[in-house]
């Protein structure tokens, strides 16, 4: 199951580490990652990952949801199909 994870929010130490650690815990393999901090300290990160065990989707989403609250970020987890359907004919 391929997923796209987007993270947006105020920059702070450890965002990449925390998100990556949760992915590793749920057997999520990072295929592509791009991260930058905009002027004004807005952090953005886009990860494309492969979830080896699709049964873990709900647990992964829950863990990232908790992190979203803890670090006050916006984290979206979406199946890759959303982007394939919208941007590939």
């Amino acid at each position, binding site marked *: 199951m391929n997923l796209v994870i987007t993270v947006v929010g105020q920059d702070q130490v450890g965002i990449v580490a925390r998100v990556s650690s949760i992915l590793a815990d749920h057997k999520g393999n990072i295929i592509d990652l791009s991260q930058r901090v905009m002027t004004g300290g807005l952090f953005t990160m886009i990860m494309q990952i492969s979830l080896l065990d699709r049964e873990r989707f709900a647990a992964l989403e829950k863990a990232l949801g908790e992190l979203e609250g803890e670090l006050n970020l916006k984290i979206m987890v979406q199946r890759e199909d959303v*982007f394939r359907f919208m941007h590939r004919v």
Partner: protein
Amino acid sequence: MLYHHEEILETVRMINHDLLDIRTVTLGLDLRSCIHPDPQLMAQQIKDKVTTEARKLVAVTNEVERELGIPIVNRRVATNPIADLGAAALAAGHRDFFPLLAQALDEAAQESGIDFIGGFSALVEKGASHADLALIESLPEALSSTSRVCSSICLASTKAGINMDAVAKMGSIIKEAAELSAGQACAKLVVFANAPTDNPFMAGAFLGAGEPEMVINVGVSGPGVIRAVVESIPDLDLGGVAEAIKRAAFKITRMGELVGREVSRRMNIPFGIVDLSLAPTPAAGDSVAQILEAMGLEICGTHGTTAALALLNDAVKKGGTMASSAVGGLSGAFIPVSEDQGMIEAVQAGVLTLSKLEAMTAVCSVGLDMIAIPGETPAETISALIADEMAIGMVNNKTTAVRVIPAIGKKTGEMISFGGLLGDAPVMPMKEKAASIFIKRGGRIPAPLRSLTN
């Protein structure tokens, strides 16, 4: 397959910022297996069947929503016209049982957690059966005593003409429903010309003739996305504007296609259609009026509005058709006044009038929608308003509809509130001269000639 970051951010922005959503996943559900001469037993069977299937719909759509990260705003059920269920009970001598069936539908909707259930309907464009008439007579009580049941009555078609007896009847039914419910019931009642059989949007969703036992129809929305696109291209000519709208409509519709396929596969129910309709909500920016204004109109309703809307409606259809093998339903731009902040402001500014709205309905989907009129408007005048709109649909071979709300005790300019997606509406003035003699003639306006079309 990897995606460009711009592509990912564009999608995320559409959802988070421009309010792209799946407005509804609507399960079409045939209830004819519930027909029984005993209304109590029939009501129980209806409730059981709807509850069982609707619960599955809610569970599956929740899963799909979570995995795809696209909001699914409403879960709905559309039944076949409930009037068709009543003939056996009428023949057995029972009377006044339709409100009981509405109650069963409402309880099923509440218990299963769906937002609306449509299909408390009758198709009477050429004539009405006893059961059709009984259902129509029951509407004020049935819709006032339930909260999630929606009703549509088809009064006209290009092939049948306009059933003016039914038009006359519906004027007084709408008025009575408003009086019983302070207007709320009328927000759940629509009359149609050329009613589509696969429309997932309320109040007009029902499972029409020729549809399968069960079917998944998806309604996509996204006025905010289109508005953002049009605002971003201030220097393009109108051909360029149409092209940009087509591209955005394609992308929006693809989301409906994806959701429809997923829900259909998981429920093992055929996927019917995607209805790409720009359905505004009271939320800021989620407005069809503001799309037209972004094209260059000072305010919606001024001269040029009909042309701008024609461009929008056509471009939306063209983009949507490319995105799905089965586009259906209404597919176009909706112009409900109470649900669109831009429309409300245009009415309050005195620019958008009923006459202009009527002209706009000739070039977009649906018709006079969520319009509040003075509570003292005579029933015959409401019927005459309906007759005009039916004529536009009949002659132009398109769907048109009327959903007006007589605001009891209120006069022109006052506001009436419906809550939630239905919004607030300013009461609009009606013409005061009568059409009652015309309406009282009754009968049928014959179907129009389809050649010599000038």
